[in-house]
């Protein structure tokens, strides 16, 4: 697996504000890599440096072994770009945008087929201003794919979309990956990152906090697990407390919240229930999410 994007120690300041500081990471061929963090964390600045739209004050970037600033025109032929909160001319027609974009690249994809694949075929004569939020984003994805790029950059792709449109877009992004392309995306939605990304880099206040697969990040930073169950068994509390891997038990009438750690924790709780023939009316486990990881590693919620 070779690195498609390689960022080494970049720093970018706007006046006295440090937007991005000492950021390093690599995006590997064929993966969906996510840069995740709250608004203002430096995601877009980092991505725009990688795209060659901004010049970092310090550090080195290479994309497909090209320099995004020096080789910008060579690079543009091989990457697809979707910008955050981009707009078009209100009265441009969908097919006109696709037609213009296609004319700008040396090896354009079939625009009509792209529109078809992205569910925009019946919108080809519609003005941009009449499209819904999801349709606009699908058009931007179509334009990002028009040159058959090796890498696709997606910046806050689903911001402002309703859950249904968001899920449709997620399927499209997986489709991009299935075509063998590398995807580098940013998002402040942890659920989106968890569902889409093979690996994520957590960025906060301009700095990378950690990089790994979502599962590994959760295992590393939030190893604790929770079992929630309901039982009327009077002796259950004592049994739970005596179970290996259990850290604490909270009881509210018949409802129990059992916290523990380690891979065996849930199995141990189930064994305890089985061994002591404890009758449960309800049983469910809670696994920490990237949102919990973010809180743990940065000390504040991503929603702040």
């Amino acid at each position, binding site marked *: 697996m070779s690195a498609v994007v390689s960022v080494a120690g970049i720093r970018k300041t706007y006046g006295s504000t440090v937007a991005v500081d000492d950021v390093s990471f690599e995006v590997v061929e064929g993966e969906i890599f996510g840069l995740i963090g709250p608004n203002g964390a430096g995601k877009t600045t980092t991505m725009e440096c990688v795209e060659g739209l901004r010049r970092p004050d310090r550090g080195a970037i290479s994309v497909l072994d090209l320099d995004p600033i020096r080789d910008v025109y060579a690079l543009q032929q091989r990457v697809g770009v979707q910008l955050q909160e981009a707009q*078009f001319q209100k009265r441009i027609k969908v097919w006109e945008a696709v037609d213009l974009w296609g004319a700008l*690249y040396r090896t354009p994809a079939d625009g009509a087929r792209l529109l078809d694949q992205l569910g925009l075929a019946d919108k080809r004569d519609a003005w941009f201003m009449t499209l819904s939020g999801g349709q606009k984003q699908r058009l931007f994805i179509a334009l990002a794919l028009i040159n058959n790029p090796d890498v696709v950059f997606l910046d806050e792709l689903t911001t402002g979309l309703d859950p249904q449109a968001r899920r449709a877009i997620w399927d499209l992004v997986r489709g991009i990956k299935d075509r063998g392309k590398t995807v580098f995306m940013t998002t402040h939605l942890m659920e989106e990152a968890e569902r889409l990304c093979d690996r994520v880099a957590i960025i906060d206040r301009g700095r990378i906090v950690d990089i790994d697969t979502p599962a590994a990040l959760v295992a590393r930073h939030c190893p604790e697990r929770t079992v929630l169950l309901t039982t009327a068994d009077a002796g259950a509390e004592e049994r739970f407390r005596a179970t290996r891997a259990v850290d604490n038990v909270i009881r509210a009438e018949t409802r129990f919240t059992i916290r523990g750690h380690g891979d065996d924790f849930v199995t141990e709780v189930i064994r305890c229930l089985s061994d002591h023939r404890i009758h449960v009316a309800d049983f469910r486990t809670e696994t920490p999410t990237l949102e919990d990881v973010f809180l743990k590693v940065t000390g504040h919620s991503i929603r702040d």
Partner: protein
Amino acid sequence: MLRGLWKLTWLELKIFAREPLGLIGTLLIPPLSVVVLGRIFGRIPSASPRLSSFVTVDLPVFAAVFTALNAVQSLVTIVSIYREGGILKRLRATPLRPQTILSAQVLVKLILTAATLALTVLAGRNVLRISIDLHLISFAAALLFSTLSILSIGFLLASLVPTARFAQPVASLVLYPMLFLSGLFFPVDGLPAGLQIVARVIPLRYAVSLLKGIWVGEAWLAHAGDVAALVTVAVVFAGLSARVFRWE
């Protein structure tokens, strides 16, 4: 990137034509004002030489200058709307060169200026029966050249206006007062000394002088000074714009 330039220009023209109010305002106001004002002043019996020269010289030149200013104002508005909407940034993230993106906007304005001039001439010829002889190509060239020069001021304005909402009013405030000191309505020589100095640095003055001269049949050579001034304006303002132009 000539193909991109042509495609973008053609696309921008089509998009412009889809906004009826803007299209009508741009293409029809100059010919209509020529017809209406020409009718009003041309009908006065035994018109004095001053009045008749108003209809046959000042009015056409005014319509031409107005067309040019309209183009500049429209450019400022469009560039600031495109910047605010991220359209400029989006175009810039394609293989289109920055100069291609901006040249397309200039070309659109020049094409619309030429079309407006054609309509104005047709209106003047058919409705007012103003005789127009063979200076027309020359006059069109003078108008396009003047427009191009003043458009460079438009790029500077487009860089300086903070948001698209301010674009139109700011452009009007800067551009239209220039009309009064341009020598179009009253001769610059008759102005107070202070205003005369101001009038000398107003770019529009040179455009008016060139257009008037070409309209009445003077040679381009006689207006070499105006041409030089307009070239200077274009170079200076394009240079300034290149330094301060913001894509986002």
